[in-house]
């Protein structure tokens, strides 16, 4: 048995279409079988509601008198991209306010507009013969704009890796707060309710597919940026009219010490054309694999700590390194369900018809990493190979002498096998002079928890360590903790200065 999209749309118009949300499908298939499900159900609605940083909107403000060709544009102090014609701008959700930092950004501008609040537009221009005006400041509401078209380059990730943290300090990431020592797991995505999970072959989701977008009827533009269905990470570029949107499905957010983002509610209605579509909409959370990655490793490819499923993540706990660790979601499953049920109601009431893509999306491609013509320099390129060392049983006076002779501020302390066991700085020695009675040996004053780097560490990572721990040098160690060099803030400063000058 097969169904055509026309047949389904006729049922929608006649008011006898049978629509279910994707989370109901496994049960329906279980009860009726695949054939029975195809006979019984016409449309499966999906939904997701989560942080989607790659979002924004094109706004057209209309012309002022005298007219201005806006070159730089701010909305409530959040800069929008003005390099498009005279009175158009693109506001991106992650752009931060110039006065309020990450507590207010492009996402908040969009939420304010959708909520009906006034937003201050400020723009400047150098002035031309046809556009003489040089600046403008005015307050606008959404209704005052000619167009406010949300265009999100990358939304609706098919699934998303979960995050944990192996380091001994709390990390603040776009995946939320990650506690030290695998203290928690954070994940995102609606799992089996997620649109692309229900049509991984992209048979019914493609350019031109009508969708639910933040409470408005939107459309799939085409494949999202970084679309990588070949690795299970398909994405969509979507668009919709902000004037039809509701704050119920569009919310600004701030990830602590990371920045601003927008929570987007997005749903797709999937027509059950044949058994193949029944099977793909029968997907369960147990079927969707998710890697838990270690965000403590500051690289593009973060190591997988464990492979789990959405079912395990949603249970609230997973076992990690022999311990039970709490999991929690950044995206809202409750709101995702609300998206799917709202879309179901639209269809049941005949307000929303389906159509097949005017152009299919690639369902096998894999996103590429960035090609880098100048690889990021590593520690070994600028470290000093001259290492001034001492052992812990030598006297502080010897240490002072070595510091003076070496014209340096740092002495590494080595054990008999040449391994790093501590560090002594000129500051430690000055302190020992002031605070008498702490003993006269290096081991009495040295710092034992030495922050260190390796030859292959990228310089920005090493620089971050210097900044975070407020220190001025890092011993460079090999695998056996033997010191092979020193990286100082001075060396780093010189290099960074050269880079900024370019």
């Amino acid at each position, binding site marked *: 048995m097969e169904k055509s999209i026309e047949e389904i749309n006729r049922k929608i118009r006649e008011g006898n279409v049978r629509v279910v949300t994707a989370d109901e499908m496994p049960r329906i298939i279980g009860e009726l079988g695949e054939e029975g499900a195809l006979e019984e159900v016409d449309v499966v609605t999906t939904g997701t509601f989560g942080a989607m940083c790659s979002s924004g909107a094109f706004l057209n403000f209309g012309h002022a008198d005298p007219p201005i060709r806006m070159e730089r544009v701010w909305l409530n102090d959040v800069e929008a991209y003005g390099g498009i014609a005279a009175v158009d701008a693109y506001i991106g959700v992650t752009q931060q306010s110039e006065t309020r930092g990450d507590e207010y950004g492009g996402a908040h501008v969009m939420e304010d507009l959708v909520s009906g609040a006034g937003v201050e537009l400020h723009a400047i221009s150098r002035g031309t013969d046809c556009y003489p005006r040089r600046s403008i400041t005015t307050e606008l509401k959404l209704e005052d704009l000619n167009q406010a078209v949300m265009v999100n380059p990358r939304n609706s990730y098919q699934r998303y890796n979960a995050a944990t943290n192996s380091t001994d300090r709390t990390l603040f990431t776009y995946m939320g707060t990650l506690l030290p020592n695998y203290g928690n797991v954070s994940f995102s995505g609606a799992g089996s309710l997620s649109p692309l999970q229900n049509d991984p072959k992209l048979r019914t989701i493609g350019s031109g597919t009508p969708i639910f977008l933040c409470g408005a009827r939107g459309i799939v533009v085409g494949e999202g940026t970084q679309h990588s269905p070949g690795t299970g990470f398909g994405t969509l570029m979507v668009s919709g009219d902000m004037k039809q949107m509701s704050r119920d499905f569009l919310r600004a957010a701030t990830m602590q010490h990371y920045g601003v983002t927008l929570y987007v509610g997005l749903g797709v209605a999937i027509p059950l054309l044949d058994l193949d579509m029944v099977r793909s909409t029968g997907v369960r959370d147990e079927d969707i694999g998710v890697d838990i990655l270690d965000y403590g490793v500051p690289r593009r490819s973060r190591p997988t700590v464990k492979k789990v499923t959405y079912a395990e993540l949603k249970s609230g706990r997973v076992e990690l390194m022999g311990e039970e660790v709490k999991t*929690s*979601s950044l995206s809202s499953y409750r709101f995702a369900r609300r998206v799917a049920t709202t879309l179901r109601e639209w269809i049941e009431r005949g307000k929303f018809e389906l159509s097949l893509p005017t152009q299919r999306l690639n369902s096998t491609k894999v996103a590429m990493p960035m090609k880098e013509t100048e690889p990021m320099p590593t520690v070994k390129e600028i470290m000093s190979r001259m290492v001034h060392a001492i052992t812990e049983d030598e006297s502080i006076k010897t240490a002072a002498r070595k510091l003076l002779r070496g014209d340096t501020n740092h002495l590494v302390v080595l054990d008999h096998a040449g391994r790093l066991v501590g560090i002594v700085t000129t500051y430690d020695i000055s302190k020992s002079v002031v605070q008498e009675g702490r003993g006269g040996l290096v081991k009495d004053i040295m710092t034992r928890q030495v922050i260190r780097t390796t030859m292959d560490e990228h310089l920005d990572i090493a620089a971050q360590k210097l900044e975070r721990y407020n220190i001025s040098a890092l011993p460079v160690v090999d695998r056996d903790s033997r010191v092979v060099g020193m990286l100082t803030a001075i060396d780093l400063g010189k290099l960074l200065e050269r880079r900024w000058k370019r």
Partner: protein
Amino acid sequence: MKLLLTYSKRKGGEPIIARIVKETGVLITVERANIDTLAGEVLIDVPDESARMICDLIKSRGAEVRILEQGIVRDENECVDCGACISICPKDVFYMDHEWKVQLRKGRCILCGRCIVACPHRALSQSQ
């Protein structure tokens, strides 16, 4: 019941809590303490029936004390029930109910403030 003590060490640094435990035999749980050289702020949990007596004793020893009834407060207009607060809370204050709505067990809250900054929607705050 949770009590928040604030005191200054200028008065000689008397071990207030230890002494009260010793004198009354009431078991006091220290849930959070923030003490530096000059002042201290300590969150304690005491049995409800002894709370009034403990409060009086603390005051008589020169420290300030107030009862924390509320714990963390949620702004329903901002919360989207994502659950980001759940895994970072050291006291399991938050949990997901069967309808995937985040629920709070306020009595467990020790006002550590971790969830306030972790909430992407700024929906959590300290009321007192």
